[in-house]
Protein backbone atom coordinates (compact mmCIF):
# COMPACT_ATOMS: atom_id res chain seq x y z
CA UNK A 1 0.00 0.00 0.00
CA UNK A 2 1.20 3.47 -0.89
CA UNK A 3 0.66 6.21 1.64
CA UNK A 4 1.28 9.81 0.62
CA UNK A 5 1.11 12.93 2.74
CA UNK A 6 2.84 15.95 1.28
CA UNK A 7 2.84 19.68 1.02
CA UNK A 8 4.85 21.57 -1.52
CA UNK A 9 4.92 25.24 -2.43
CA UNK A 10 5.07 26.05 -6.12
CA UNK A 11 4.93 29.54 -7.61
CA UNK A 12 1.35 30.72 -7.04
CA UNK A 13 0.16 27.29 -6.00
CA UNK A 14 0.25 25.14 -2.89
CA UNK A 15 0.07 21.38 -3.17
CA UNK A 16 -1.34 19.72 -0.06
CA UNK A 17 -2.34 16.11 -0.58
CA UNK A 18 -2.96 13.17 1.69
CA UNK A 19 -4.14 9.80 0.42
CA UNK A 20 -3.45 6.09 0.48
CA UNK A 21 -3.57 3.88 -2.57
CA UNK A 22 -4.55 0.23 -2.01
CA UNK A 23 -3.58 -2.66 -4.29
CA UNK A 24 -4.83 -2.59 -7.88
CA UNK A 25 -4.98 0.43 -10.14
CA UNK A 26 -5.38 3.79 -8.43
CA UNK A 27 -6.09 6.69 -10.76
CA UNK A 28 -4.80 10.11 -9.83
CA UNK A 29 -7.38 12.15 -11.69
CA UNK A 30 -7.57 15.89 -12.22
CA UNK A 31 -7.30 18.55 -14.86
CA UNK A 32 -3.89 19.93 -15.93
CA UNK A 33 -2.40 22.05 -13.20
CA UNK A 34 -4.17 20.17 -10.41
CA UNK A 35 -0.83 18.98 -9.03
CA UNK A 36 -0.78 15.44 -10.44
CA UNK A 37 2.72 15.66 -11.90
CA UNK A 38 4.24 17.24 -8.81
CA UNK A 39 2.68 14.47 -6.72
CA UNK A 40 4.03 11.61 -8.87
CA UNK A 41 7.44 13.24 -9.10
CA UNK A 42 7.57 13.43 -5.32
CA UNK A 43 6.55 9.77 -5.05
CA UNK A 44 9.16 8.73 -7.61
CA UNK A 45 11.85 10.78 -5.88
CA UNK A 46 12.40 13.11 -8.84
CA UNK A 47 11.29 16.07 -6.75
CA UNK A 48 12.13 16.91 -3.15
CA UNK A 49 8.93 18.17 -1.50
CA UNK A 50 8.93 20.87 1.17
CA UNK A 51 7.38 18.52 3.67
CA UNK A 52 6.29 14.95 3.12
CA UNK A 53 5.82 11.48 4.47
CA UNK A 54 5.68 8.85 1.77
CA UNK A 55 5.71 5.14 2.54
CA UNK A 56 5.30 2.10 0.32
CA UNK A 57 4.33 -1.17 2.03
CA UNK A 58 5.71 0.23 5.27
CA UNK A 59 9.01 1.21 3.68
CA UNK A 60 9.80 4.90 4.23
CA UNK A 61 10.65 6.60 0.93
CA UNK A 62 10.49 10.21 2.07
CA UNK A 63 10.17 11.59 5.57
CA UNK A 64 11.22 15.21 5.65
CA UNK A 65 10.90 15.35 9.44
CA UNK A 66 13.50 12.57 9.75
CA UNK A 67 15.49 13.95 6.80
CA UNK A 68 14.94 10.79 4.79
CA UNK A 69 14.73 11.12 1.03
CA UNK A 70 15.65 8.01 -0.96
CA UNK A 71 17.05 8.73 -4.43
CA UNK A 72 14.90 7.40 -7.33
CA UNK A 73 17.16 4.40 -7.99
CA UNK A 74 16.65 3.05 -4.47
CA UNK A 75 12.84 3.38 -4.40
CA UNK A 76 11.91 0.33 -6.49
CA UNK A 77 9.29 2.44 -8.24
CA UNK A 78 9.31 2.18 -12.01
CA UNK A 79 7.77 4.96 -14.07
CA UNK A 80 6.15 4.76 -17.50
CA UNK A 81 6.52 8.24 -18.91
CA UNK A 82 4.25 9.95 -21.41
CA UNK A 83 7.15 10.15 -23.89
CA UNK A 84 8.36 6.56 -23.50
CA UNK A 85 12.01 7.48 -22.98
CA UNK A 86 13.43 4.30 -24.48
CA UNK A 87 17.21 4.13 -24.74
CA UNK A 88 18.09 4.85 -28.39
CA UNK A 89 21.42 2.99 -28.29
CA UNK A 90 19.87 -0.26 -27.10
CA UNK A 91 17.71 -2.86 -28.84
CA UNK A 92 14.18 -3.63 -27.66
CA UNK A 93 15.49 -6.65 -25.74
CA UNK A 94 18.26 -4.62 -24.11
CA UNK A 95 15.78 -1.91 -23.17
CA UNK A 96 13.52 -4.50 -21.58
CA UNK A 97 16.26 -6.12 -19.54
CA UNK A 98 17.87 -2.84 -18.46
CA UNK A 99 16.32 -2.78 -15.00
CA UNK A 100 16.71 -6.47 -14.18
CA UNK A 101 20.42 -6.25 -13.58
CA UNK A 102 20.15 -3.36 -11.13
CA UNK A 103 17.32 -5.01 -9.23
CA UNK A 104 19.55 -8.08 -8.70
CA UNK A 105 16.55 -10.25 -9.51
CA UNK A 106 16.84 -13.96 -8.88
CA UNK A 107 15.04 -16.76 -10.61
CA UNK A 108 14.02 -17.29 -14.21
CA UNK A 109 13.95 -14.30 -16.53
CA UNK A 110 10.45 -12.91 -16.89
CA UNK A 111 11.28 -11.30 -20.22
CA UNK A 112 9.70 -13.92 -22.51
CA UNK A 113 6.47 -13.95 -20.47
CA UNK A 114 6.18 -10.14 -20.35
CA UNK A 115 7.06 -9.86 -24.05
CA UNK A 116 4.28 -12.34 -24.84
CA UNK A 117 1.80 -10.47 -22.66
CA UNK A 118 2.59 -7.22 -24.49
CA UNK A 119 2.85 -8.85 -27.95
CA UNK A 120 6.36 -7.55 -28.54
CA UNK A 121 8.16 -10.88 -28.92
CA UNK A 122 8.61 -10.24 -32.65
CA UNK A 123 10.25 -6.88 -31.94
CA UNK A 124 12.85 -8.08 -29.44
CA UNK A 125 15.88 -7.93 -31.72
CA UNK A 126 14.87 -4.71 -33.42
CA UNK A 127 16.19 -1.26 -32.64
CA UNK A 128 13.74 1.23 -31.22
CA UNK A 129 13.79 3.72 -34.10
CA UNK A 130 11.44 1.79 -36.35
CA UNK A 131 8.81 1.30 -33.65
CA UNK A 132 5.38 2.93 -33.79
CA UNK A 133 4.18 5.10 -30.90
CA UNK A 134 2.03 2.27 -29.55
CA UNK A 135 4.87 -0.25 -29.76
CA UNK A 136 7.18 2.17 -27.95
CA UNK A 137 4.77 2.55 -25.05
CA UNK A 138 4.38 -1.24 -24.82
CA UNK A 139 8.16 -1.62 -24.66
CA UNK A 140 8.33 1.16 -22.05
CA UNK A 141 5.67 -0.66 -20.03
CA UNK A 142 7.56 -3.95 -20.31
CA UNK A 143 10.82 -2.28 -19.34
CA UNK A 144 9.19 -0.83 -16.21
CA UNK A 145 7.57 -4.16 -15.27
CA UNK A 146 10.80 -6.13 -15.70
CA UNK A 147 12.72 -3.91 -13.29
CA UNK A 148 10.87 -5.70 -10.48
CA UNK A 149 9.14 -2.62 -9.02
CA UNK A 150 7.03 -2.48 -5.87
CA UNK A 151 4.91 0.20 -7.53
CA UNK A 152 4.34 1.22 -11.12
CA UNK A 153 3.83 4.93 -11.77
CA UNK A 154 2.15 5.72 -15.06
CA UNK A 155 2.42 9.41 -15.81
CA UNK A 156 -0.21 10.01 -18.52
CA UNK A 157 1.18 7.09 -20.54
CA UNK A 158 -1.40 7.46 -23.32
CA UNK A 159 -1.58 11.25 -23.55
CA UNK A 160 0.85 11.46 -26.46
CA UNK A 161 -1.00 8.83 -28.54
CA UNK A 162 -3.91 9.24 -30.91
CA UNK A 163 -7.23 7.46 -30.29
CA UNK A 164 -6.33 4.43 -32.38
CA UNK A 165 -3.02 3.91 -30.54
CA UNK A 166 -4.77 4.40 -27.18
CA UNK A 167 -7.26 1.72 -28.09
CA UNK A 168 -4.31 -0.50 -28.99
CA UNK A 169 -2.64 -0.10 -25.56
CA UNK A 170 -5.63 -0.12 -23.20
CA UNK A 171 -6.28 -3.88 -23.41
CA UNK A 172 -2.66 -4.51 -22.33
CA UNK A 173 -3.11 -2.23 -19.33
CA UNK A 174 -6.29 -4.15 -18.48
CA UNK A 175 -4.40 -7.42 -18.69
CA UNK A 176 -1.78 -6.01 -16.39
CA UNK A 177 -4.43 -4.91 -13.88
CA UNK A 178 -6.24 -8.24 -14.04
CA UNK A 179 -3.00 -10.15 -13.55
CA UNK A 180 -3.09 -8.46 -10.15
CA UNK A 181 0.63 -8.16 -9.59
CA UNK A 182 2.26 -4.84 -8.99
CA UNK A 183 0.08 -1.95 -7.77
CA UNK A 184 -0.29 0.91 -10.23
CA UNK A 185 -0.69 4.64 -9.72
CA UNK A 186 -2.19 5.86 -12.97
CA UNK A 187 -2.08 9.61 -13.62
CA UNK A 188 -4.59 10.88 -16.12
CA UNK A 189 -6.94 13.66 -17.01
CA UNK A 190 -8.87 11.44 -19.44
CA UNK A 191 -12.06 10.11 -17.85
CA UNK A 192 -12.52 7.26 -20.35
CA UNK A 193 -9.12 5.77 -19.41
CA UNK A 194 -9.83 6.16 -15.72
CA UNK A 195 -13.32 4.64 -15.97
CA UNK A 196 -11.86 1.71 -17.86
CA UNK A 197 -8.83 0.98 -15.72
CA UNK A 198 -9.18 2.27 -12.18
CA UNK A 199 -10.20 0.31 -9.12
CA UNK A 200 -9.72 3.37 -6.94
CA UNK A 201 -9.88 7.05 -7.90
CA UNK A 202 -8.16 9.97 -6.20
CA UNK A 203 -9.64 13.25 -7.44
CA UNK A 204 -7.18 16.11 -7.29
CA UNK A 205 -8.20 19.72 -7.77
CA UNK A 206 -6.16 22.91 -7.26
CA UNK A 207 -3.53 21.06 -5.25
CA UNK A 208 -5.95 19.30 -2.91
CA UNK A 209 -7.52 15.86 -2.71
CA UNK A 210 -11.26 16.22 -3.30
CA UNK A 211 -12.22 12.57 -2.79
CA UNK A 212 -10.72 9.12 -2.62
CA UNK A 213 -12.89 6.10 -3.24
CA UNK A 214 -13.88 3.10 -5.33
CA UNK A 215 -14.23 3.87 -9.03
CA UNK A 216 -17.93 2.86 -9.27
CA UNK A 217 -18.86 4.91 -6.18
CA UNK A 218 -17.14 8.07 -7.29
CA UNK A 219 -18.29 7.92 -10.91
CA UNK A 220 -21.95 7.62 -9.82
CA UNK A 221 -21.76 10.52 -7.34
CA UNK A 222 -23.62 13.51 -8.85
CA UNK A 223 -21.71 15.92 -6.62
CA UNK A 224 -18.45 14.98 -8.31
CA UNK A 225 -19.71 15.47 -11.86
CA UNK A 226 -18.12 18.90 -12.07
CA UNK A 227 -14.69 17.35 -11.55
CA UNK A 228 -15.25 14.65 -14.15
CA UNK A 229 -16.58 17.19 -16.65
CA UNK A 230 -20.30 17.86 -17.10
CA UNK A 231 -20.41 16.39 -20.56
CA UNK A 232 -18.41 13.28 -19.72
CA UNK A 233 -20.10 12.44 -16.42
CA UNK A 234 -21.37 8.91 -16.39
CA UNK A 235 -21.41 5.84 -14.21
CA UNK A 236 -20.54 2.19 -14.52
CA UNK A 237 -22.88 -0.76 -14.88
CA UNK A 238 -21.49 -4.21 -14.13
CA UNK A 239 -22.59 -6.91 -16.54
CA UNK A 240 -21.85 -10.42 -17.73
CA UNK A 241 -21.95 -11.49 -21.36
CA UNK A 242 -24.83 -13.96 -21.86
CA UNK A 243 -24.75 -14.69 -25.58
CA UNK A 244 -23.92 -13.37 -29.00
CA UNK A 245 -27.06 -13.36 -31.09
CA UNK A 246 -27.71 -13.91 -34.78
CA UNK A 247 -28.88 -10.34 -35.45
CA UNK A 248 -25.47 -8.92 -34.50
CA UNK A 249 -26.29 -8.03 -30.91
CA UNK A 250 -24.69 -9.26 -27.73
CA UNK A 251 -26.94 -9.89 -24.75
CA UNK A 252 -25.54 -9.00 -21.35
CA UNK A 253 -27.05 -9.61 -17.94
CA UNK A 254 -26.97 -6.79 -15.38
CA UNK A 255 -28.33 -7.03 -11.87
CA UNK A 256 -31.46 -5.22 -13.09
CA UNK A 257 -32.12 -7.15 -16.27
CA UNK A 258 -30.77 -7.74 -19.74
CA UNK A 259 -29.18 -5.16 -22.00
CA UNK A 260 -28.23 -5.53 -25.66
CA UNK A 261 -25.19 -4.05 -27.35
CA UNK A 262 -23.84 -4.21 -30.88
CA UNK A 263 -21.65 -7.27 -30.90
CA UNK A 264 -18.63 -6.95 -28.55
CA UNK A 265 -15.42 -8.93 -28.50
CA UNK A 266 -15.74 -10.51 -25.04
CA UNK A 267 -16.74 -14.17 -24.83
CA UNK A 268 -19.95 -15.41 -23.13
CA UNK A 269 -19.41 -15.55 -19.37
CA UNK A 270 -16.98 -12.64 -19.37
CA UNK A 271 -17.47 -9.86 -16.80
CA UNK A 272 -17.54 -6.41 -18.37
CA UNK A 273 -17.98 -2.87 -17.12
CA UNK A 274 -20.37 -0.78 -19.15
CA UNK A 275 -19.96 2.95 -19.16
CA UNK A 276 -23.28 4.77 -19.18
CA UNK A 277 -23.01 8.51 -19.96
CA UNK A 278 -25.46 10.55 -17.86
CA UNK A 279 -26.69 12.51 -20.85
CA UNK A 280 -27.62 9.33 -22.72
CA UNK A 281 -30.10 8.17 -20.07
CA UNK A 282 -33.79 9.11 -20.41
CA UNK A 283 -36.22 8.72 -17.49
CA UNK A 284 -39.85 7.64 -17.64
CA UNK A 285 -42.31 7.23 -14.76
CA UNK A 286 -44.15 4.39 -16.51
CA UNK A 287 -42.76 1.50 -18.50
CA UNK A 288 -42.39 2.95 -21.98
CA UNK A 289 -44.07 1.19 -24.85
CA UNK A 290 -43.39 1.29 -28.58
CA UNK A 291 -39.91 2.72 -28.18
CA UNK A 292 -36.99 1.97 -30.45
CA UNK A 293 -34.57 1.86 -27.53
CA UNK A 294 -33.76 -1.68 -26.44
CA UNK A 295 -32.26 -1.06 -23.07
CA UNK A 296 -34.88 -0.18 -20.50
CA UNK A 297 -34.08 -0.90 -16.86
CA UNK A 298 -36.26 -0.47 -13.78
CA UNK A 299 -34.71 2.06 -11.43
CA UNK A 300 -35.24 3.89 -8.18
CA UNK A 301 -34.17 7.50 -7.69
CA UNK A 302 -31.66 7.75 -4.85
CA UNK A 303 -30.52 11.36 -5.19
CA UNK A 304 -31.36 14.46 -7.17
CA UNK A 305 -28.65 17.02 -7.56
CA UNK A 306 -29.34 20.34 -9.24
CA UNK A 307 -26.51 22.04 -11.04
CA UNK A 308 -27.25 25.30 -12.78
CA UNK A 309 -26.80 25.48 -16.51
CA UNK A 310 -26.39 21.76 -17.02
CA UNK A 311 -29.77 20.60 -15.79
CA UNK A 312 -30.27 18.10 -13.01
CA UNK A 313 -28.25 14.99 -12.30
CA UNK A 314 -30.31 12.11 -11.00
CA UNK A 315 -28.64 9.21 -9.29
CA UNK A 316 -30.49 5.93 -9.80
CA UNK A 317 -30.31 2.57 -8.15
CA UNK A 318 -30.34 0.01 -10.95
CA UNK A 319 -30.16 -3.46 -9.46
CA UNK A 320 -27.01 -3.32 -7.36
CA UNK A 321 -25.39 -0.54 -9.40
CA UNK A 322 -25.76 3.22 -9.26
CA UNK A 323 -25.98 5.17 -12.50
CA UNK A 324 -26.52 8.82 -13.38
CA UNK A 325 -29.09 10.46 -15.64
CA UNK A 326 -29.09 14.07 -16.76
CA UNK A 327 -32.51 15.64 -17.20
CA UNK A 328 -33.67 19.23 -17.49
CA UNK A 329 -34.91 21.13 -14.46
CA UNK A 330 -38.37 21.24 -16.03
CA UNK A 331 -38.52 17.44 -16.50
CA UNK A 332 -37.34 16.86 -12.95
CA UNK A 333 -40.27 18.92 -11.67
CA UNK A 334 -42.78 17.48 -14.14
CA UNK A 335 -41.85 13.88 -13.26
CA UNK A 336 -41.67 14.78 -9.57
CA UNK A 337 -38.33 13.05 -9.19
CA UNK A 338 -37.62 12.53 -5.49
CA UNK A 339 -35.46 10.02 -3.68
CA UNK A 340 -37.47 6.82 -3.61
CA UNK A 341 -39.35 7.51 -6.85
CA UNK A 342 -39.64 4.39 -9.00
CA UNK A 343 -39.04 4.91 -12.68
CA UNK A 344 -37.52 3.40 -15.79
CA UNK A 345 -34.11 4.30 -17.20
CA UNK A 346 -33.91 4.22 -20.97
CA UNK A 347 -30.27 3.90 -21.92
CA UNK A 348 -29.64 5.27 -25.40
CA UNK A 349 -25.99 4.31 -25.65
CA UNK A 350 -23.72 2.09 -23.70
CA UNK A 351 -20.07 1.42 -24.29
CA UNK A 352 -17.95 -1.37 -22.98
CA UNK A 353 -15.66 0.45 -20.60
CA UNK A 354 -13.63 -2.41 -19.47
CA UNK A 355 -13.47 -6.09 -20.18
CA UNK A 356 -11.81 -8.92 -18.37
CA UNK A 357 -8.55 -10.43 -19.49
CA UNK A 358 -10.39 -12.35 -22.20
CA UNK A 359 -9.78 -9.49 -24.62
CA UNK A 360 -7.25 -10.31 -27.27
CA UNK A 361 -7.24 -13.98 -26.27
Amino acid at each position, binding site marked *: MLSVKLTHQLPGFTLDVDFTAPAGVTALFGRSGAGKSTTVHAIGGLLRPDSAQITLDGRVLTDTAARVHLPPYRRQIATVFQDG*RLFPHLSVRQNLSYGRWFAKLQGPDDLPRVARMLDITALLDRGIHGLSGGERQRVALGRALLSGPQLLLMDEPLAALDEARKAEILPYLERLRDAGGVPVLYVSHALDEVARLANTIVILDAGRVVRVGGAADLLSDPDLASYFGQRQAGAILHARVTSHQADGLTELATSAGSVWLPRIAALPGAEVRLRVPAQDVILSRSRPDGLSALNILPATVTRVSGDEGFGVLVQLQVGTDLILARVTQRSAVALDLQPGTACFAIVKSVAVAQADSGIGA
Partner: protein
Amino acid sequence: MGDWLTPMEISALGLSLRVSFWATVVSLPLGVAVAWLLARKRFWGHGLLNGLVYLPLILPPVVTGYVLLIVFGRQGLVGAFLDQTFGLVFAFRWTGAALAAGVMAFPLMVRAIRLAIEAVDPRLEQAAGTLGASPVWVFVTVTLPLILPGILAGAVLCFAKAMGEFGATITFVSNIPGETQTLPSAIYTALQVPGGGPQVVRLVLISTAIAMIAIALAEWLSRRVARRIAGRSGGAGA
Protein backbone atom coordinates in the same frame (compact mmCIF):
# COMPACT_ATOMS: atom_id res chain seq x y z
CA MET B 1 61.56 3.96 -43.99
CA GLY B 2 65.15 4.65 -43.04
CA ASP B 3 66.03 4.81 -46.72
CA TRP B 4 63.99 7.88 -47.45
CA LEU B 5 63.86 9.62 -44.05
CA THR B 6 66.94 11.00 -42.30
CA PRO B 7 67.53 10.08 -38.63
CA MET B 8 66.61 13.65 -37.66
CA GLU B 9 63.31 13.42 -39.52
CA ILE B 10 62.49 10.02 -38.01
CA SER B 11 63.28 11.36 -34.57
CA ALA B 12 61.08 14.46 -34.99
CA LEU B 13 58.22 12.44 -36.49
CA GLY B 14 58.40 9.75 -33.78
CA LEU B 15 58.52 12.37 -31.06
CA SER B 16 55.53 14.25 -32.48
CA LEU B 17 53.48 11.05 -32.60
CA ARG B 18 54.52 10.06 -29.07
CA VAL B 19 53.80 13.52 -27.66
CA SER B 20 50.40 13.72 -29.34
CA PHE B 21 49.46 10.18 -28.31
CA TRP B 22 50.19 10.75 -24.65
CA ALA B 23 48.68 14.24 -24.65
CA THR B 24 45.43 12.72 -25.97
CA VAL B 25 45.36 9.60 -23.79
CA VAL B 26 46.08 11.42 -20.54
CA SER B 27 43.74 14.35 -21.12
CA LEU B 28 40.79 12.27 -22.38
CA PRO B 29 39.40 11.08 -19.00
CA LEU B 30 39.96 14.53 -17.55
CA GLY B 31 38.30 16.08 -20.58
CA VAL B 32 35.20 13.86 -20.18
CA ALA B 33 35.00 14.71 -16.47
CA VAL B 34 35.36 18.46 -17.00
CA ALA B 35 32.93 18.45 -19.95
CA TRP B 36 30.37 16.59 -17.81
CA LEU B 37 30.81 19.02 -14.91
CA LEU B 38 30.40 22.03 -17.20
CA ALA B 39 27.43 20.55 -19.07
CA ARG B 40 25.42 19.03 -16.23
CA LYS B 41 26.36 20.65 -12.93
CA ARG B 42 25.81 24.13 -11.60
CA PHE B 43 28.27 24.90 -8.81
CA TRP B 44 30.18 27.78 -7.32
CA GLY B 45 33.17 28.43 -9.60
CA HIS B 46 31.43 27.05 -12.72
CA GLY B 47 32.30 30.22 -14.64
CA LEU B 48 35.87 30.18 -13.34
CA LEU B 49 36.45 26.57 -14.43
CA ASN B 50 34.90 27.33 -17.79
CA GLY B 51 37.22 30.32 -18.22
CA LEU B 52 40.31 28.37 -17.14
CA VAL B 53 39.57 25.58 -19.61
CA TYR B 54 39.16 27.95 -22.53
CA LEU B 55 42.02 30.28 -21.57
CA PRO B 56 44.74 28.50 -23.65
CA LEU B 57 42.56 28.95 -26.73
CA ILE B 58 42.58 32.72 -26.34
CA LEU B 59 45.98 33.46 -24.79
CA PRO B 60 49.01 33.74 -27.05
CA PRO B 61 50.65 30.28 -26.94
CA VAL B 62 53.88 31.83 -25.72
CA VAL B 63 52.04 33.04 -22.60
CA THR B 64 50.69 29.55 -21.94
CA GLY B 65 54.21 28.17 -22.37
CA TYR B 66 55.57 30.75 -19.96
CA VAL B 67 52.92 29.94 -17.34
CA LEU B 68 53.72 26.23 -17.72
CA LEU B 69 57.39 27.02 -17.23
CA ILE B 70 56.66 28.89 -14.00
CA VAL B 71 54.28 26.29 -12.60
CA PHE B 72 55.76 23.04 -13.94
CA GLY B 73 59.43 24.05 -14.24
CA ARG B 74 61.95 22.43 -11.87
CA GLN B 75 61.71 25.46 -9.57
CA GLY B 76 57.94 25.75 -10.12
CA LEU B 77 55.49 24.99 -7.35
CA VAL B 78 53.95 21.91 -8.96
CA GLY B 79 57.06 20.98 -10.96
CA ALA B 80 59.27 20.75 -7.86
CA PHE B 81 56.66 18.70 -6.02
CA LEU B 82 56.23 16.22 -8.88
CA ASP B 83 60.01 15.94 -9.27
CA GLN B 84 60.60 15.19 -5.58
CA THR B 85 57.58 12.92 -5.06
CA PHE B 86 57.30 10.96 -8.29
CA GLY B 87 60.54 11.80 -10.07
CA LEU B 88 58.39 13.19 -12.85
CA VAL B 89 60.15 16.02 -14.68
CA PHE B 90 58.51 18.16 -17.35
CA ALA B 91 61.04 20.90 -18.01
CA PHE B 92 63.03 20.33 -21.23
CA ARG B 93 61.73 16.76 -21.58
CA TRP B 94 59.36 15.19 -24.10
CA THR B 95 56.87 14.80 -21.21
CA GLY B 96 56.80 18.60 -21.00
CA ALA B 97 56.06 18.77 -24.74
CA ALA B 98 53.16 16.37 -24.17
CA LEU B 99 51.92 18.49 -21.26
CA ALA B 100 52.08 21.67 -23.34
CA ALA B 101 50.31 19.99 -26.27
CA GLY B 102 47.66 18.57 -23.94
CA VAL B 103 46.96 21.93 -22.30
CA MET B 104 46.72 23.70 -25.65
CA ALA B 105 44.39 21.03 -27.10
CA PHE B 106 42.22 20.67 -23.96
CA PRO B 107 39.67 23.41 -24.81
CA LEU B 108 38.93 21.84 -28.20
CA MET B 109 38.46 18.41 -26.68
CA VAL B 110 36.24 19.64 -23.83
CA ARG B 111 34.10 21.64 -26.26
CA ALA B 112 33.43 18.65 -28.52
CA ILE B 113 32.55 16.35 -25.60
CA ARG B 114 30.48 19.00 -23.83
CA LEU B 115 28.34 19.55 -26.92
CA ALA B 116 27.76 15.79 -27.12
CA ILE B 117 26.73 15.61 -23.44
CA GLU B 118 24.38 18.58 -23.82
CA ALA B 119 22.72 16.77 -26.72
CA VAL B 120 21.82 13.80 -24.48
CA ASP B 121 18.23 14.10 -23.22
CA PRO B 122 18.44 14.32 -19.39
CA ARG B 123 15.03 12.65 -19.26
CA LEU B 124 16.65 9.45 -20.55
CA GLU B 125 19.08 9.56 -17.63
CA GLN B 126 16.15 10.20 -15.29
CA ALA B 127 14.36 7.16 -16.72
CA ALA B 128 17.46 5.03 -16.13
CA GLY B 129 17.42 6.20 -12.51
CA THR B 130 13.83 5.08 -11.99
CA LEU B 131 14.84 1.65 -13.33
CA GLY B 132 17.33 1.27 -10.51
CA ALA B 133 20.57 2.62 -11.98
CA SER B 134 22.68 4.72 -9.63
CA PRO B 135 24.16 7.96 -11.05
CA VAL B 136 27.48 6.26 -11.87
CA TRP B 137 25.73 3.42 -13.71
CA VAL B 138 23.47 5.89 -15.51
CA PHE B 139 26.61 7.59 -16.81
CA VAL B 140 28.28 4.33 -17.84
CA THR B 141 25.24 2.66 -19.44
CA VAL B 142 23.36 5.61 -20.94
CA THR B 143 25.39 8.82 -21.15
CA LEU B 144 28.73 7.33 -22.19
CA PRO B 145 27.46 5.19 -25.10
CA LEU B 146 25.42 8.12 -26.40
CA ILE B 147 28.34 10.57 -26.33
CA LEU B 148 30.89 8.16 -27.81
CA PRO B 149 30.96 9.93 -31.19
CA GLY B 150 31.58 13.22 -29.38
CA ILE B 151 34.40 11.71 -27.33
CA LEU B 152 35.96 10.35 -30.50
CA ALA B 153 35.69 13.73 -32.21
CA GLY B 154 37.25 15.37 -29.17
CA ALA B 155 40.14 12.90 -29.16
CA VAL B 156 40.81 13.43 -32.87
CA LEU B 157 40.76 17.20 -32.46
CA CYS B 158 43.10 16.93 -29.48
CA PHE B 159 45.54 14.72 -31.39
CA ALA B 160 45.52 17.02 -34.40
CA LYS B 161 46.05 20.12 -32.30
CA ALA B 162 48.88 18.39 -30.39
CA MET B 163 50.61 17.43 -33.67
CA GLY B 164 50.69 21.08 -34.70
CA GLU B 165 51.46 22.67 -31.33
CA PHE B 166 54.50 24.94 -31.51
CA GLY B 167 54.44 28.18 -29.49
CA ALA B 168 53.77 26.85 -25.99
CA THR B 169 56.01 23.83 -26.58
CA ILE B 170 59.10 25.77 -27.66
CA THR B 171 58.61 28.26 -24.80
CA PHE B 172 58.21 25.56 -22.16
CA VAL B 173 60.61 22.81 -23.23
CA SER B 174 62.75 24.52 -25.89
CA ASN B 175 63.82 22.81 -29.11
CA ILE B 176 66.21 19.97 -28.25
CA PRO B 177 66.79 17.46 -31.08
CA GLY B 178 65.81 13.96 -29.96
CA GLU B 179 64.12 15.20 -26.75
CA THR B 180 61.70 18.03 -27.48
CA GLN B 181 62.16 18.73 -31.20
CA THR B 182 58.75 17.87 -32.66
CA LEU B 183 57.91 18.29 -36.36
CA PRO B 184 56.89 21.96 -36.08
CA SER B 185 60.05 22.72 -34.06
CA ALA B 186 62.16 20.91 -36.66
CA ILE B 187 60.56 22.97 -39.44
CA TYR B 188 61.30 26.12 -37.46
CA THR B 189 64.96 25.05 -37.01
CA ALA B 190 65.34 24.27 -40.71
CA LEU B 191 63.91 27.67 -41.58
CA GLN B 192 66.64 29.35 -39.50
CA VAL B 193 69.46 27.57 -41.41
CA PRO B 194 70.64 29.21 -44.66
CA GLY B 195 69.90 26.82 -47.51
CA GLY B 196 67.45 24.84 -45.38
CA GLY B 197 64.75 25.13 -48.04
CA PRO B 198 64.75 21.51 -49.25
CA GLN B 199 64.70 20.26 -45.63
CA VAL B 200 61.69 22.48 -44.91
CA VAL B 201 59.87 21.10 -47.94
CA ARG B 202 60.57 17.49 -46.86
CA LEU B 203 59.28 18.16 -43.31
CA VAL B 204 56.21 19.97 -44.64
CA LEU B 205 55.44 16.98 -46.87
CA ILE B 206 55.79 14.60 -43.92
CA SER B 207 53.44 16.82 -41.83
CA THR B 208 50.91 16.92 -44.64
CA ALA B 209 51.02 13.14 -45.09
CA ILE B 210 50.48 12.60 -41.35
CA ALA B 211 47.58 15.05 -41.38
CA MET B 212 45.94 13.27 -44.33
CA ILE B 213 46.32 9.87 -42.67
CA ALA B 214 44.88 11.25 -39.41
CA ILE B 215 41.87 12.72 -41.21
CA ALA B 216 41.20 9.47 -43.09
CA LEU B 217 41.49 7.49 -39.85
CA ALA B 218 39.12 9.83 -38.02
CA GLU B 219 36.58 9.60 -40.83
CA TRP B 220 36.75 5.82 -40.83
CA LEU B 221 36.41 5.63 -37.04
CA SER B 222 33.48 8.03 -36.81
CA ARG B 223 31.68 6.23 -39.62
CA ARG B 224 32.17 2.94 -37.80
CA VAL B 225 30.81 4.34 -34.55
CA ALA B 226 27.88 5.99 -36.31
CA ARG B 227 27.09 2.72 -38.07
CA ARG B 228 27.28 0.78 -34.83
CA ILE B 229 24.88 3.15 -33.06
CA ALA B 230 22.56 3.28 -36.08
CA GLY B 231 22.80 -0.48 -36.41
CA ARG B 232 21.52 -0.98 -32.90
CA SER B 233 18.86 1.66 -33.02
CA GLY B 234 17.71 1.72 -36.62
CA GLY B 235 18.47 -1.78 -37.83
CA ALA B 236 15.76 -3.93 -39.30
CA GLY B 237 16.79 -6.69 -36.93
CA ALA B 238 16.46 -9.41 -39.54
